Each structure stands twice: as structure tokens, then as C-alpha cells.
């Protein structure tokens, strides 16, 4: 991860002005490739970095890339929410956890299970290859769109069709906040 990546990761927000309409297709394609690279680089840092703080930084980069992908998938709203929630909340929460609970970053780990690394690689590789194969082989049938999926429609759907889910998710969030407060507060008398 370097400075240019961070700057680049900011770019698509305005380069793809009205969705993808106004901009030359090539430019959009180039930016898309850059974004894919950023996502993957971020992911690699996130799952492979020795230092956990760097892993979180990589995760943030990855999320920015994913937000760009969402932009390309015609949903800027979800892209912005992705940045707002993942970078602004989840990554910061994890970084907090690291600061509060992992003082010795460079602690030498004892000998891992000798096969853990290769096994992980094999498991992950198999899953990935399987899914990629599926994705390449299957012929997905596109259905005609019934609407444009605007922000307004999302809101309407959330409060009508999915109101039950919406409420449940709210309750889950509430319980999560209260629960985490209870767990984390436990044992601190001040």
C-alpha cells in the first residue's frame, strides 16, 4: 500500500460522474482495473501482514476498492455506505481492539501446526478455484429490469416489504451494542 493507491482509491467517486454515462468507456475500464488491483492488494495485506495494524489498513484499502466496485455495479448509495460503515466504523473498531488488546505485536509465535500454512492455502485455493470455475462455467440468465434501483426505492422497500428484517437488524444492532458494552465493561471498576 502506498500513497498513490490511496489517492487512486479516491478517484472513481467523481470520475464516473453520472454512473458511467458521461465518461469514455476506456477510462472507466482503466479505473476499474486499478480498483480491482487495489481491492486485491488490500486483501492480500489484510490476510497476510505480520502486523495487525497494517492488516487493518489493508482491510480499509480493500474496502475502498470494494466500494468502487459497487459504484460500477450502479449503486453509489451502497458504495458510500460501504465506506461510511466499513472504513469509518468497522476498521476503526478493529484498530481499537488491536490497540487495547495486543500490546506485543512482534511477539514470536510458537511453532504453528506445521501444516496450518499449506493447509490454509490448499483449502482457500480449492474454494477459490471451485467458485471461479462455477462462475466461469455457469451461464447466468439476465432478467429484464423492472426498475432502476434508486435510493428512494431502497428506502420504500426497506420500510414496506422488508420492514420486519429491518426491525430485526435494528434489534440485532442494539443487542450487539449493549452486549459489547456489557462484555467490555465487565471487570473495569472505574
Amino acid at each position, binding site marked *: 500500500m502506498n500513497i498513490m493507491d490511496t489517492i487512486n482509491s479516491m478517484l472513481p467517486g467523481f470520475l464516473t460522474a453520472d454512473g458511467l454515462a458521461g465518461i469514455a468507456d476506456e477510462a472507466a475500464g482503466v479505473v476499474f482495473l486499478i480498483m480491482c488491483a487495489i481491492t486485491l492488494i488490500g486483501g492480500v495485506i489484510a490476510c497476510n501482514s505480520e502486523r495487525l495494524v497494517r492488516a487493518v489498513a489493508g482491510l480499509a484499502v480493500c474496502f475502498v476498492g470494494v466500494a468502487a466496485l459497487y459504484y460500477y455495479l450502479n449503486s453509489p448509495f451502497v458504495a458510500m455506505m460501504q465506506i461510511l460503515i466499513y472504513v469509518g466504523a468497522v476498521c476503526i473498531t478493529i484498530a481499537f481492539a488491536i490497540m487495547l488488546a495486543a*500490546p506485543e505485536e512482534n511477539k514470536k509465535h510458537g511453532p504453528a501446526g506445521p501444516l496450518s500454512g499449506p493447509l490454509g492455502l490448499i483449502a482457500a485455493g480449492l474454494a477459490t478455484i471451485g467458485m471461479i470455475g462455477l462462475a466461469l462455467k455457469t451461464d447466468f440468465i439476465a432478467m429484464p429490469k423492472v426498475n432502476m434501483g434508486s435510493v428512494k426505492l431502497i428506502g420504500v422497500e426497506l420500510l414496506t416489504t422488508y420492514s420486519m428484517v429491518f426491525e430485526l437488524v435494528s434489534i440485532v444492532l442494539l443487542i450487539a451494542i449493549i452486549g459489547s458494552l456489557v462484555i467490555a465493561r*465487565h*471487570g*473495569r*471498576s*472505574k
Partner: protein
Amino acid sequence: MSGPIHIRKDETFTLNVGPQHPATHGVLRVKMEMDGEYIVKAETVLGYIHRMHELMGENRTYPQVLPNLSRLDYLGAMGYTHGHVLAVERAAGIEVPERAEYVRAIMVELNRVASHLFWFGAFVMDLGGFTPLMYAIEDREYILDMLEAVTGSRLTYCYFRFGGLYNDVDDDFVNAARAFIPRMRKSLKKYDALVTGNIIFRKRLENIGPISAEMCRKYGATGPVARGAGIDFDVRKNEPYSVYPEFDFDVPVYHECDSLARYKVRMDEMEQSLRIIEQGLDKLPEGPIMPKKKPKLIKPPKGDYYQAVETARGSFGIRIVSDGTKNAYRFKLRSPTYSNMSLFDEACEGMMIMDALAMMGSLDLVIPEIDR
């Protein structure tokens, strides 16, 4: 996992506040054992600008030590030289003309106001507000200009002499001092509205940094620190010296024991000092400023002498053991801030670092005076 938390060694970390730190106002180091934002244990490390004033006092003649005394506390230098001249005069039996005594009292009180003003500004700056410092300095400059016109220097005056003064005050000074009093009263009102009433300021000081009367007695804290803890002790009233019995003034005492109480004591003290200056200017007698006969060489008779004065920071004591020669045999300075600072270690345990540093500000530290 319930119950009180047991802080283990590996959960805490050490934070060095100082020797170079904006909150310590000098080269003071406080080694803090921190648990997050909370202080588990604090250890004050002194001596970074120790200059052996006491030993100098034993090696130099009495007049030669005089300039050293103003280097103890560069903000309230008059009070410290006052202590020295009073001690030597008592030891050597030198009479002081009345006019000199009055001028001394006026000078010390002016200097006290200047010192408190600077403390006020620095304290608010410790809390993050920068502007009151500038206003305070503006008023302080007025005092310093007056003092400079009389004594010739702005900070380390060396103005008192054994038996009197270095030179006399003139009408300009008296007029300026008279003009200063209403001006300062107006400024005090401004500070009250700008700072004392401010909700953020009050929230930061109310019930923060408790220093109880017992703790003050245990560590020998004096001055505004003790008076903020409800101890009604002021050397000017309790062990009167110079012409202080002639003046009518109150000793502000607050019983809240928190940082705000110490703040209020100092703000009220400025008002009381203004009263003293007012009365001193009214009563200022004509006459000489040096005694007619003054010993050429000061050799106090054999003995042990102690003189305490109330400086801006508390009770400053000076002990001179004389063996009859022109040098002191033992020269001991009891500096108030040293005692006031020594209770910091105990008082700040369990506090948050912000509050602890606010409390440190409320102690009114002048580091050279601690280290001597």
C-alpha cells in the same frame, strides 16, 4: 472477572511527563505509571535545574546572596528577597525606616498580583485557552513597567537592601500605582466573566484534583493550596512581619479542596493585594529609605535565625545559622512550591491525566524554586 480490578504490571505503561513537556512549565519530570488514561502511580523527579542556592548562600557574603534570592522564583522575586532581607535584618539587628517598610509591602503586593496574573494565564493555557494569558500579560506588563521604572529591572529585581531600599519611589510610581488599582479591578471583572463563569472551565475544575486539609498538613503545603483546602493560614496574618499588621485585609479561604477552590483563592488574593496597595499608598510616610547608620560589613552575631514570609506561592522560610562571620554557616531555604509539589504524587493517583495536569497547574509551580 468481577470485583475491583487488579492492575498488573504488564497492563500499565510508563509515561514520562517531562523533563520537556508543555504542562510542567519548566524542566520538571513526572514519571507516571498509566493504565490507559488513568494514573496508577506518579513519581516526581526533581533536580533538573538544581543550582545550589543554599550552598552559594554559605559561600557568599550576605549582600552577595541577595541577587540569588530573586532567581529562586522569577515570577514573584520581590517576596523572596523580602524574606532574605528580613531574616538578615533580624539577625544583625538593623533598623528599617518606616517609608522603606511601606514601599517594600507595596512592591511585594504588586509583585504578588503580577505573579498571580501570570499564573492565571498559564493555568488557563494549561486548560487549553490561550487568550486569557494574553490579557493577563497585558495587565502584568503594566505592573512590570511600574516596577522597572523604580527598580531598574523587570523580573529579578534585587531591589531591597539590608535596612532599606536600593532607591526611592517617586511620584510617577505612586500615580501609576493609583491608576493601576481601578484598572486591575476592571480586569478582574473581565476575567471573572470570561473564565470563571465559563461552563467548560468550571466543569474541568469542580471536584477535580482534591487536596484535603490533612494532606496539606502531612506535606506542609502552604499558601493558596492550603487555603483552598480550608486551612486559614497566612504568614502575613498569623506571624505578622514588616508593616502588615497596619493593613486591613482578608485572607480568602475556600473549603471545597478542589482545583476551583485554589483558583478562586488566588483570584481573591489579587483583590486583597490591591486593597493592601491602596492602603499602603495612602499611608506612605515621608522619610529616608535607608537607616542613618548601617554597618559597613554585615556580620550577624552567632545564632540561629528564621524568618517566614508569605510569597505568592505560600510560606517561604529562610533559616540562617550564623557563626559570627560574614558568611552564613548554614543557609536553608524552605520553598513553598517544593512542599506543594510533593503532595502531587499522592494526590494524582487514580486521576485521569487531563485532570492531573489541570491540578498540577492549580498548584502554581515555578520549577527553579522547587529545585533551588
